[in-house]
């Protein structure tokens, strides 16, 4: 784990267990000033727990948390310089929007004109000025989430924490607010830590993504790197929709060249950049459906023919299911070139874009 020079948030050897159950295990992560970090993972992977630890809503079992260079491990949430946005908005139902926004400031005893100034600014940024006198029950889901973001905004903090803020919204609103959050980040340039299980949100928003599983960060990198060079099979399968194709087979070396072999399929690996010195044995070959060329001649390092099993039209493009080496294999095809069921088609791809994993450990080869 490389450490940053002046991290905005720094988590060092953080562990959390509830009794015998270990939720987070010696976790290390540094977040740079103004960086947008997304914690991504399936439910139960510990991403929300980690966020709650950073917020100070959960006591840690071991390790330290620094925010802005200050050790806040034992600090109360309000003293950590964080603002938090929750999945269920968590607006106080008996208060108007204005009172919701000002609650934290009133508790902190900030002068009234300063409160008014900050609310005006937040309301302007989020365009919720007409809603200030309404109760949360009179707002739509998107408006509620804007108010919830506003509540973090008025606190004038260095670090924003988002706990799956868009999960309760419908698909259209989610896309709109996603863009708004991105705009907000580019406007404010605050450090933001964002928890989600939605890979689209992660890919679109993040400067860096931390993919988590079982309380351990699997990979922490820029979205494109994670997408194109996943460090293990879990990361490869979790990101991407439709999911990456995996073929079970063996790694073999003949005439000095490495090949991936699965039944009658032999994929030459001359162009593949191995992570470490390969050894013959069981392996998993992964390639994304959009990296497979469809009926486009023989100019590829690997070509094959296969029968179409089923086609799934998705509007913008079509997903074609094939059988390759008796295993399921999908190809993404533009809508105009959709084949029919049971057609025999040719496919081709460059193993340069593929990922090879160890069959036993799942790590990238």
């Amino acid at each position, binding site marked *: 784990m490389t450490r940053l020079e002046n991290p905005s948030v720094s988590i060092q050897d953080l562990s959390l267990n509830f009794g015998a159950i270990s939720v987070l295990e010696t976790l290390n992560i540094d977040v740079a000033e103004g960086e947008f970090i997304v914690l991504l993972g399936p439910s139960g992977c510990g991403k929300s727990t980690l966020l*709650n630890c950073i*917020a*100070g*809503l959960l006591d840690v079992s071991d390790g330290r948390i620094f925010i802005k260079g200050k050790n806040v491990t034992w600090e*109360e*949430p*309000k003293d950590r310089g*964080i*603002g*938090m946005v*929750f*999945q*269920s*908005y*968590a*607006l*106080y*139902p*008996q208060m108007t929007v204005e009172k919701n926004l000002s*609650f*934290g400031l009133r*508790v*902190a005893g900030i002068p009234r004109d300063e409160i008014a100034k900050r609310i005006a600014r937040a309301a302007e940024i989020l365009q919720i000025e007409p809603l200030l006198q309404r*109760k*949360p*029950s009179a707002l739509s889901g998107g408006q509620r989430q804007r108010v919830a973001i506003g*509540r973090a905004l008025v*606190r004038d903090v260095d670090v924003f924490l988002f*706990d799956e803020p868009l999960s309760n919204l419908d698909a259209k609103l989610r896309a709109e607010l996603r863009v708004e959050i991105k705009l907000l980040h580019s406007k404010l340039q605050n450090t933001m830590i964002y928890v989600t299980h939605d890979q689209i949100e992660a890919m679109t928003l993040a400067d860096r993504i931390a993919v988590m599983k079982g309380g351990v960060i699997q990979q922490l990198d820029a979205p494109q790197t994670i997408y194109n060079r996943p460090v293990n099979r879990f990361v490869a399968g979790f990101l991407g929709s439709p999911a990456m194709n995996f073929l079970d087979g063996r790694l073999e070396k003949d005439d000095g060249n490495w090949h991936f072999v699965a039944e009658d399929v032999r994929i030459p690996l001359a162009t593949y950049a191995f992570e470490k010195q390969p050894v013959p044995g069981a392996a998993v070959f992964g390639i994304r459906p959009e990296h497979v060329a469809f009926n486009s001649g023989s100019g590829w390092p690997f070509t094959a023919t296969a029968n179409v*099993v*089923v086609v799934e039209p998705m509007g913008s493009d079509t997903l074609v*299911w094939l059988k390759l080496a008796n295993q*399921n294999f999908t190809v993404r095809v533009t809508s105009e070139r959709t084949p029919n069921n049971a057609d025999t088609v040719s496919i081709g791809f460059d193993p340069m874009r593929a990922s090879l994993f160890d069959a036993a450990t799942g790590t990238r080869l």
Partner: protein
Amino acid sequence: MADLAVSLPAGKGSIGLEASGPRGPKPRHVFSRRNIFLYGTLIVVALYYLLPLYVMVVTSLKGMPEIRLGNIFSPPLEITFDPWVKAWSSACTGLNCDGLSRGFWNSVRITVPSVVLSIAIASVNGYALANWRFKGADTFFVILIVGAFIPYQVMIYPIVIILREIGLYGSLSGLVIVHSIFGMPILTLLFRNYFTSMPEELFRAARVDGAGFWGIYFRIMLPMSLPIFVVAIILQVTGIWNDFLFGVVYTRPDTYPMTVQLNNIVNSVQGVKEYNVNMAATILTGLVPLVVYFVSGKLFVRGIAAGAVKG
């Protein structure tokens, strides 16, 4: 994905559109067998419960000569409010002959502080148990719940001794303390479950906003929990007002609550049995819980409706 064969349901052909035939809502007959059975049962049950009340009201409005005629169901020939006045202000219980009014005010002085005290403590208990998982919270909760299962009778004598030792035996404040303690298990359970059902993120948001234990309780939780407070008030007011056992054990004749006084009036063995006065006294005693049910019932529904709008 091994088998991708899909079987489509066999076509049913087109369904003929007939010009006539049923359309729109199905007609319902007022005197259907279902309605007769349903409303018949309801009416019988309602009569069964209302008849005693009717007898009480008409008897309390009759004079003694009319009662001696023995027609308990017939309405009064001559309406008189004297039994009510006597029951309230001059019926004799033991040495005192100032009616139920003394017991009424005693009961008020017992019920109001007991209700306020028990609900105040139990709501904070429930809030702490639900939201602030302190060390030993579960043990504390189990002890409290076990308390709800212990029969009152077991504790009567020990409490007599405790009250005597701290010098509160026979006083109203002693009884208030007893009522508050005995209301604690069920009320704490009630409040704990209610606060547990509230979204936890709300509590977390308030903590991030910097509110402390009491800040969150008074400014976030309390305004959101009107329905459960109404439920608790109904439970406690009716329970404490109707209590007889603690009242008779822990107070003296001049501090007897209304229920104990009513018993003494009705069960007095000297002189003529004044049925009309007894009936009036009984209705007077039962009036407070009745009013609470009617008034708070409406509030209760409104409270639930207001609480149903999730923020």
